[in-house]
């Protein structure tokens, strides 16, 4: 039997995708289904799993009355959700810093490439080394930051003690946010902004200059609208990443503490899975994160387009 060429092509097509598709089925599609099943199951990895219906989600999202007041069934989960949102408040500052660095690097001046490399260093370094470095810098008794702070305080006549950066509830989250800003500002986002800036047609600036526009006007009336797709993309990715972040910092630097103040959803999932062996409950938290991320993506599709100016070039 002779095969038609279109049939040959179809068979070839299936053969070409086969290795990848087999892996996709086994390590992506099947696990997604399995994880959905897990979220309705109680399982400690040792005994056999038990179907518990919606119990995991009732515990996760439900409330009950206690002495007349509404109390969450799982206060720790809500606390971690709050922590995750809190830590994400640095995102706008990160994005502004990235944009500022990109604007500066986009100038045609000497030494720019050196700075580009320097700003990018934290992004290519393994995160554990970075976390250890900041863990040391934030050390209460012997850390660099407290040396600088105490020194500055003394020079204006205040005899101060160092701040408990990572070991006090008040400072732990801001400390992680400052570190996050340091890591993120010169990373992928800066490069994306740089690409967007280089994509703005020069004629627009030239025309504006002839009309007598200053730098300020040129930025707000040309640059900002022209790069809005990049800004939008960067913001969305940062938010999606933010909901899944904070694991390594918690693991290396704070252990999620003090008083769970730096435990994010991701670290909570890890603890339920690995430390407390609540496989089903871990899966239900992971699905909660998925729903949040999914809703944000939907909102972006629906409303994002109106905020963004797509160029006609």
């Amino acid at each position, binding site marked *: 039997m002779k095969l038609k060429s279109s049939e040959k092509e179809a068979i070839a097509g299936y053969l070409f995708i086969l290795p990848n598709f*087999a892996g996709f089925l086994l*390590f992506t599609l099947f696990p997604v289904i399995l994880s959905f099943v897990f979220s309705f199951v109680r399982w400690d990895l040792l005994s056999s799993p038990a179907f518990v219906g919606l119990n995991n989600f009732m515990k996760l999202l439900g409330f009950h009355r206690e002495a007349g007041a509404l109390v969450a069934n799982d206060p720790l989960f809500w606390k971690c959700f709050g922590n995750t949102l809190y830590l994400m408040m640095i995102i706008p500052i990160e994005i502004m810093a990235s944009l500022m660095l990109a604007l500066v690097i986009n100038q045609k001046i000497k030494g720019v490439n050196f700075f580009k490399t320097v700003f990018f260093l934290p992004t*290519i370094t393994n995160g554990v080394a970075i976390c250890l470095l900041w863990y040391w810098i934030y050390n209460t008794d012997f850390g660099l930051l407290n040396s600088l702070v105490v*020194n500055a305080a003394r020079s204006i006549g205040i005899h101060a003690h160092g701040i408990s950066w990572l070991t006090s509830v008040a400072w732990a989250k801001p400390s992680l946010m400052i570190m996050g800003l340091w890591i993120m500002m010169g990373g992928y986002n800066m490069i994306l902004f740089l*690409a967007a800036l280089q994509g703005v047609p020069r004629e627009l600036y030239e025309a504006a200059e002839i009309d007598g526009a200053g730098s300020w006007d040129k930025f707000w009336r040309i640059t900002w609208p022209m790069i809005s797709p*990049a800004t939008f993309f960067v913001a969305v990715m940062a938010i999606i990443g933010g909901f899944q972040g904070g694991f390594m910092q918690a693991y290396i630097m704070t252990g999620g503490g003090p008083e769970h103040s730096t435990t994010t959803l991701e670290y909570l999932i890890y603890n339920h899975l690995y430390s407390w062996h609540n496989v089903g409950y871990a899966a239900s938290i992971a699905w909660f994160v998925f729903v949040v*991320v999914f809703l944000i993506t939907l909102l972006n599709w629906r409303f994002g387009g109106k905020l963004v100016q797509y160029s006609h070039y």
Partner: protein
Amino acid sequence: MREEKTLGRIGRERRRKNVLKKVLTYAILAAGGVTMILPFLWMVSTSLKSFGSVFIFDVKDIQWIPKSICWANYIDVWKVVPFARFYLNSIFVCCVVTFGQVATSALAAYAFARLKFPGRDKLFFGYLATMMIPGSVTMIPVFTMMSVFGWIDSYKALIIPAIFSAYGTFLLRQFFMTLPRDLEDAAKIDGCSLWGIFWRVILPLSNTALATLTIFVSLGNWVSFMWPLLVTNSIEKKTLPIGLAYFQEMYQYAQPDWGLLMAGSLVTMVPIIIVFLFNQRFFIEGIKLTGIKG
């Protein structure tokens, strides 16, 4: 006469503005550069201090340059923890995963970009849809699968689940779509098989995209943390990041030897920085490529 004067004034003003702009630019660059470099310098400085001298807290005299330089940290660190073993593990896992992922992605991407077969577009949409799913959703069942397979604490668990990615397929498919079809048509007329077209036409034309994906995958695997942490137990199987975390855990109940820890951290950092310096172009191009199209 008067016009010339006005023009001269505008010119002077513009020049003054340009100077101001340059000063501001350099000020921001310098401030940013110092902020980025100081912590790294502190890392180098600490790594050259002996155990005792790290804990001298004299705020008036922060020792950026150690009074006595202790090179021994860089020798001792290899003895305290088996960093050489971690390095070998990381290099082995990283190479296999990168090769496997680039190869399977390229094959699938070619089929998705060029070959017609029933269900192709639906399948591709399925790939895209799963890219939105948070890693932890799939990580939990894959972890339980590993323990059912008995793969925990083996290279299989470190390598096999990491080989397949929808992301790599997507990236290369987008790139293959931009290639002109003329060459392929010519090769077809000359009697070239589909494999021949893929191997001799498509791949050589896609050097940049393949290099970009290679760098992304290898860097991502090199620094990956949570997965290796979950599936390794014994020291012999740990990769570099996990090994470094293990090194820190050794000091759980004592004041860490910060000099050694920082030396260890630097030992894990420096090679990748060198690799980056030589491949910077691909990094930057790659980010632009994925950022704009992703």
